């Protein structure tokens, strides 16, 4: 599975959206309907899934699916 596919699984489950909606351009809040509390939980789910630690300063910058993919790839 690609990073995007794994992300799509987690995000669609967490936010109740279709995996197909989880495209790189999608913004967590505006397009996928997340609130700030969803994002906190999502970040922790990503940490578990990809076995990494995302500091709050970095987490704050991840506003789209694409940014999350790029961040995970860079780790």
């Amino acid at each position, binding site marked *: 599975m690609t990073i995007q596919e794994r992300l799509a699984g987690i995000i669609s489950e967490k936010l109740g959206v279709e995996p197909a909606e989880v495209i790189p351009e999608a913004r967590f*809040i505006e397009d996928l309907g997340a*609130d*700030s*509390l969803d994002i*906190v*939980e999502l*970040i*922790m789910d990503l940490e578990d899934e990809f076995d990494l630690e995302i*500091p*709050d*300063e970095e*987490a*704050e910058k991840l506003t789209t699916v694409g940014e999350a993919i790029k961040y995970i790839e860079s780790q």
Partner: protein
Amino acid sequence: MKTEITKMLGIRYPIFQGGMAWVSDGHLAAAVSNAGGLGIIGAGSAPGKVVQEEIKKARQLTDKPFGVNIMLMSPEVDEVVDVVCQERVDVVTTGAGNPGKYMQSLEKAGIKVFPIVPTLGLAKRLSRYPIAGIIAEGGEAGGHVGDVSTMVLVALLSREIDVPVIAAGGIADGRGLLAALALGAEGVQLGTVFVCTEECKVHDNYKKAILRAKERSTKVTGKTIKRPVRCIENQLVRKLEKMDREKVSPEEFEIIAAGSLREAVHEGDVEMGSLMAGQSAALVNSIKSVAEVVESIVAEAHQARDRVDNFFKGVGSYV
């Protein structure tokens, strides 16, 4: 009383007065600290300089510990963090967001940080930092709120989080204090009841609106813009509810909501002002001094404990 919180902070009762923007100034905070609780200045969206003046005011009025609540959505938040670090206040509570990125500077200044959280998720995330405790605030609370009830949230956090839990949302009397302690909390935080005190300087109309409020008088608006706020229902709330239904943009919402808290607090505009209050407004029926509020909460909690104690002893109900 003695709990983890009273021991940690050196205060008489494990009762925090919730930080309320425009409402809890240095004067009210000092009164609460002098009464044996922990007074908290609400920074709201005030500039750092204003917050600093309130801290200095409180210091003149009390030698007891007190705190500052930092509203993380405030545009002035960086400046306010600088001020509290510079002033080395005893306690900081944070609301309306994730204080993660400020934790290092606050810790360095020796400040005990108690983030206010509405979910276990955020509590877990913040447990990575050296927080002194965590305030579990249920959706019954006034102002910026989450939607999990205090009953569930306090039990959950007490079970799952290693630092002391303070229960907030829906508590205004001794029964609430005892219930929170039974759920696993080491202390409570109350806001609404402290608005209706002699020492609180808000407009009388605001206090009267709380005294009149019943259990369904408060409403949450702003859910569509993901910034839910609980206030006593009035013309403003009905207007915001309509905007919620019409899904207007956060910017439009902001135009109507901005300044409305100040209007309510200082001008006493009970129709177009934002009368932030929790559901516990229904439990607040008179204006007392801060000391009377604190002492009556503790006395009532004792009575409530004796009543429950009798159930376990098999003695029966009322004492």
